[in-house]
């Protein structure tokens, strides 16, 4: 808990939270202001439109925020010499990882709650009265999904952090991980699918390959989860086409969170500062 508290305090103190809140809030409001235009023809509530536009951008932004938070966690402490202190203190190494994650989860949660949450208030009260809160559930789901996606990349950042000996290397690899999972993976998958003309990949394998990427799992969770949202996003029927079991995307996200954390705990056990 002490470690979590320190991470949160550091996040607040070095204005990380402030920057992230500002970024998310500006993004949400800008998209809200612009986002009502393309939705004109399709009838949809402001919230559902916001979910679609925010999730489409959040899928790039939140992993980036996540790796930025995570990649410094161990290698940075090591360079400052404080890691030896933490490891020499009567605190278990798993507790150290848990404390860090808790702190970073709080930092990220705060940024999302204030950023996206603040935008939600604007959308609700700035809207057309009556049905203002319609689609609020989908929006809330988007916020929670964003938090989870961010945490997945925090955990991946930890893994990078513990596997490298210098902060700059960790930063570069972290950006590489982000690029790979957020951008390249999908492009490669589409490329393979197109090149093979549907023969190389059968439909269910393709579905799983899509869902196994945490960012795509996030898209499925936030965009295809609500039928109305899916319609706005043009993703109607995607989940049924993909034929994935119920909750698969959530399972994938949790797996992406827990597997790196377990690996980090094991590696930290052998870590020699």
């Amino acid at each position, binding site marked *: 808990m002490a*470690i979590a508290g*320190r991470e949160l305090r550091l996040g607040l*103190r070095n204005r990380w939270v402030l920057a992230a809140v500002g970024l998310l809030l500006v993004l949400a409001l800008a998209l809200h202001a612009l986002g009502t235009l393309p939705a004109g023809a399709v009838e949809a509530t402001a919230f559902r439109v916001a979910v679609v536009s925010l999730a489409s951008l959040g899928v790039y932004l939140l992993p980036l925020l996540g790796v930025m938070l995570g990649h410094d966690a161990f290698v940075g402490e090591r360079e*400052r*010499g404080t890691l*030896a*202190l933490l490891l*020499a203190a*009567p605190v278990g190494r798993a507790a150290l990882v848990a404390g860090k994650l808790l702190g970073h989860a709080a930092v990220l949660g705060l940024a999302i709650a204030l950023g996206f949450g603040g935008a939600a208030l604007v959308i609700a009260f700035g809207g057309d009265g009556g049905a203002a809160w319609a689609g609020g559930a989908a929006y809330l789901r988007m916020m929670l999904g964003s938090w989870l996606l961010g945490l997945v990349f925090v955990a991946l950042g930890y893994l990078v952090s513990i596997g490298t000996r210098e902060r700059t290397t960790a930063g570069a690899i972290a950006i590489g991980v982000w690029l790979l999972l957020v951008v390249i993976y999908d492009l490669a998958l589409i490329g393979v699918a197109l090149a093979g003309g549907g023969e190389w990949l059968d439909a269910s394998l393709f579905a799983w390959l899509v869902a196994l990427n945490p960012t795509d799992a996030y898209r499925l969770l936030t965009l295809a989860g609500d039928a109305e949202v899916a319609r706005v996003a043009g993703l109607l029927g995607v989940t049924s086409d993909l034929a994935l079991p119920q909750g698969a995307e959530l399972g994938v996200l949790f797996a992406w969170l827990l597997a790196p954390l377990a690996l980090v705990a094991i590696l930290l056990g052998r870590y020699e500062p």
Partner: protein
Amino acid sequence: MMPLAEEHAAEVILRGVRKAYRRTVILPGLDLTLPRGETLALLGHNGAGKSTVIKLMLGLVRPSGGAIDYRDAEGRAVDGAYWRRGVGFLPESLAFPGNLSGRETLRFHARLKGCPPQEADALLEDLELGDAADARVRTWSKGMRQRLGLAQALLGSPATLILDEPTSGLDPALRRALYARIEAHRAAGGTVLLSSHALNEVEHVVTRCVLLHRGTVCAAGTPATLREQAALPIRVRVTAPASVLAALAARLGSALHWRTLGEDVAETACMQHRLPGLVQAIAACGDAVRDVEITPARLDAVYAELGRQDAAQ
């Protein structure tokens, strides 16, 4: 001064401890004991293995071979983790997060160690950091940060203090303050292990020195015995009228070579066993001798000599 946490005191014994990273051997097989109540200095150049020894004791790195034992006052084997609960550790080149205040930083470490936050506040006052305690560490001077590191090590009144290069970057006044702390800790019955290459200063605070050279002990003992081992000459400087100096030199014969430093000052160097005869001869000159200065070889000269002898073998 708070009472020491005596219950976690233990003797640490390294037996044939080996440490290697891939092909780089840091310690080829080290035997070393840190007895309870001792103030032990680990001396050596950069890369001699001092920090590695400390990290091995603290369980931060694992030995590639050999064993590390921890024994309580009755000689019973205890767990390393038990001993570590009574250790205050100041790592080499420590940098606390600049965006937290000194008080926040120290309270955080107090929580990690399970100490009440008041103890952190008391230590800040004690180390004269009270005035700046609520300013961010970023704005602190190097000396203040080093004291914060020391305060962190002193939290919980540990039975054992482990200080890795504690004086690097400290001005002389702060160094003296640090050594006063170490003295106080020893006086209270505590154990201290410190690594240093500021050899001349540690000789006044330590009870025993271990000289490491490429991961092996090249000399060990009290500062005095190390000096004997190195067999370095003692400098004797005499201030007296030139005629008296000439008579003195004549009486002592050609075994001693005198160097004239001024009109009435001369200096010679002699080995330990010749010193009593020299002093007698000077005393025989009576009041004509206005001043005598006897300077034993400084510990860093001893260190250089022992290192040279070791390398020659």
